[in-house]
C-alpha cells in the first residue's frame, strides 16, 4: 500500500511537469492552430540557463529560476516572430516542419554552447524527504515542490485566461481570428503573449524536471516534450483543463506502468495511451469537436 502511494505521488509529480509543458502546447495550438514541436527544447534551454546562473555565476536558486523564465519568454517570442509569423498564411504542414527544424536548431545550438557532455544539474530544491505513516512513506521535497508549483501555475493560468483582458483576447482569437480583429483585438500581439506565457511555463518545467532527474544534455527536452504533447492530445488539444488532466494522468500511468508491469516499457505505455486515445476518442478527454467551416 505504501509502495503504491509512493509510486502514485511520484507519478503525480512527474505528471505535473508534463502538465505544465502540455499547457504550452495546448495554448499555442488553441490560438495559433499549430503544433510547436520546438516547445520541448525551450524546456532544455530553460534548464541550461538556470544551470549557468547557479554554477557559473553563483546566483541564488530563485534568481536562477526567474532568469531562466525571462530568457525563455524572450526565446518564445523570438521563435514565433522569426520562424512562425512569416508562415501565418502557409499550410499547416509547412509550419509543422518549421517547428521540427526549430527543435533541431535549438538542440544543436545548445550543443555548440554547452557541449554534448551531460551536465549534472544539482537540484534547486533542498534534498530530503518528508516521512509519513511511521517512516514507511517517504515523499521527497522535490516531489512536493513540483506538485505545489504546478498547482500554483495552473490556478494562476486559469485565472489569467478566464478573467483578464488578455486572457479573454486569447480565448476569442482561438475561436475566430477574423472577428477578433474586427473588434479591435491585436491578433499578432495575442499570439506573441501566448508564446511568451507558454515558454515561461516551459522554463519552470525545465527547472523542476532537472531537479528530479538531474541529467542535463542538449536532448533533455525532446522526450518530455513529446510526452507532454501526448498529454495535451490525451486531454484534448486546445483545452487548458484537458492539458492539466492529461499531463497528470500520463505521469501516473507512466510511473505505475514502470513499477508494476515493466520498467523498460514505461515510455511505451505513454505512447500506447496516445494510440488508444486517438482510436477511441480522437478529440481527447475534454476536447470539443470542431466543426470546420466549408
Amino acid at each position: 500500500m505504501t509502495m503504491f502511494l509512493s509510486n502514485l505521488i511520484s507519478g503525480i509529480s512527474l505528471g505535473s511537469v508534463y502538465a505544465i509543458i502540455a499547457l504550452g502546447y495546448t495554448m499555442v495550438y488553441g490560438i495559433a492552430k499549430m503544433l510547436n514541436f520546438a516547445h520541448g527544447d525551450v524546456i532544455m534551454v530553460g534548464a541550461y540557463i538556470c544551470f549557468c546562473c547557479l554554477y557559473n555565476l553563483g546566483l541564488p536558486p530563485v534568481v536562477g529560476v526567474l532568469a531562466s523564465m525571462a530568457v525563455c519568454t524572450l526565446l518564445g517570442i523570438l521563435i514565433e516572430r522569426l520562424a512562425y509569423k512569416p508562415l501565418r498564411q502557409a499550410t499547416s504542414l509547412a509550419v509543422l516542419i518549421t517547428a521540427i527544424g526549430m527543435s533541431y536548431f535549438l538542440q544543436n545550438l545548445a550543443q555548440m554552447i554547452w557541449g554534448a557532455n551531460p551536465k549534472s544539474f544539482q537540484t534547486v530544491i533542498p534534498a530530503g524527504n518528508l516521512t509519513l505513516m511511521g517512516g514507511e512513506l517517504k515523499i521527497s521535497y522535490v516531489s512536493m515542490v513540483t506538485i505545489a508549483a504546478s498547482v500554483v501555475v495552473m490556478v494562476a493560468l486559469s485565472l489569467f485566461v478566464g478573467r483578464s483582458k488578455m486572457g479573454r483576447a486569447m480565448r476569442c482569437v482561438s475561436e475566430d481570428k477574423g472577428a477578433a480583429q474586427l473588434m479591435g483585438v491585436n491578433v499578432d500581439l495575442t499570439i506573441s503573449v501566448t508564446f511568451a506565457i507558454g515558454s515561461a511555463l516551459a522554463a519552470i518545467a525545465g527547472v523542476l524536471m532537472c531537479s528530479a532527474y538531474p541529467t542535463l544534455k542538449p536532448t533533455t527536452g525532446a522526450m518530455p516534450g513529446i510526452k507532454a504533447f501526448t498529454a495535451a492530445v490525451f486531454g484534448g488539444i486546445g483545452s487548458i483543463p484537458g492539458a492539466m488532466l492529461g499531463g497528470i494522468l500520463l505521469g501516473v500511468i507512466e510511473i505505475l506502468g514502470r513499477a508494476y508491469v515493466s520498467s523498460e516499457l514505461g515510455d511505451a505505455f505513454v505512447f500506447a495511451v496516445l494510440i488508444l486515445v486517438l482510436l477511441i476518442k480522437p478529440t481527447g478527454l475534454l476536447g470539443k469537436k470542431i466543426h470546420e467551416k466549408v
Partner: protein
Amino acid sequence: MSETVKRKSDTKMVPFPSRAIVPERDLGKRPVLECSHLGIDFGGLRAVDDFNLTIGKTEIAGLIGPNGAGKTTVFNLLTKVYQPTTGTIMVNGKDTAGMNTVQANKLGLARTFQNIRLFNQMTVEDNVRIGLHNQIPYGMFSGILRLPPYWSGERKQHEKAMDLLSIFHMENLADEKAGSLPYGAQRRLEIVRALATNPSLLLLDEPAAGMNPKETEELMDNIIKIRDQFQIAIMLIEHDMNLVMGICEGICVLNFGKVIAKGTADEIQQNPEVIEAYLGRQREDEE
C-alpha cells in the same frame, strides 16, 4: 406602411457636398464616411466598381441590392478585410489607405456579420468585453499580478458591459454562453459587441435576418434609439424592405457591383432601374 413612415425623422435630405446627400441636421459636420471611386477586383471579376458614398454624422443609411450585388464586399472593404483595388475611404476625414482591420476599428468602424460570428464558447458578457478591449485598457502585468489597475479596469468593464447590454434588456443573460442564445438574441448581442468598440459608424449586415416581424419592429426602434443615444451613423444591409424604407434616410442600391441608384426611400421606390433590378424588365409586348 403609413406607420413605418412616421419613424423617420423630419429632417430633410440635402445635397452634400455635391451629388451626395446627407440629413440636413448633419450639414456643417464632417461626414463620418466618404468613399470615392471605390473598387475591388477578385481575379478577373470586378466585385465592386466605382462606389461613391457619403454618410452624414448621424445618418441611418441603407445598402440594398439583389443577392451577389457586392453589399457585403463593400462592408469588407470599409472594415479593411479586403484592401481596395481603386479608390479611397475616408473615415472621420482620415484616409484609411494601408490600414488593417484593427486600425479601422480603432478609427471608428464596427460591424456585425451576415452569418453571426459571436465567440460562442464565451459568455455574453465576455463577448461584450472583447468589444471593450481597447476602450478600457490596463497593462498585462497588472493582469497577471492582479494589481489595482486590474481590479478597477475589470470593474469598469463589467459596468460598461452591463450598461450596453441593457439597451436590448439582455443583462439577465450576461452569464449565458453566447452560442446557446436564441437566434434573435445572438443578432442583438452582435450589435452590442460592435457598439462596445465605441464606433462612429456602425455597420449592420442583415440585422433582421431570421427575426420575426415583432422582433424586427423592436429592432427598428432600437436602431433609432442607438443612433440618438450614441450620436453615431449606422449603415445597414438588409433585405427586409419594411425596415429599410422605414428607418433609412439615405439608401444606396447596388447591382452587379455598381451603384444603380441613390436617394431617399421615396425616390428609390419609384426608380425604374431599381424596380428592374429587383423584379426584372417588363416585356415590351406587355406594356
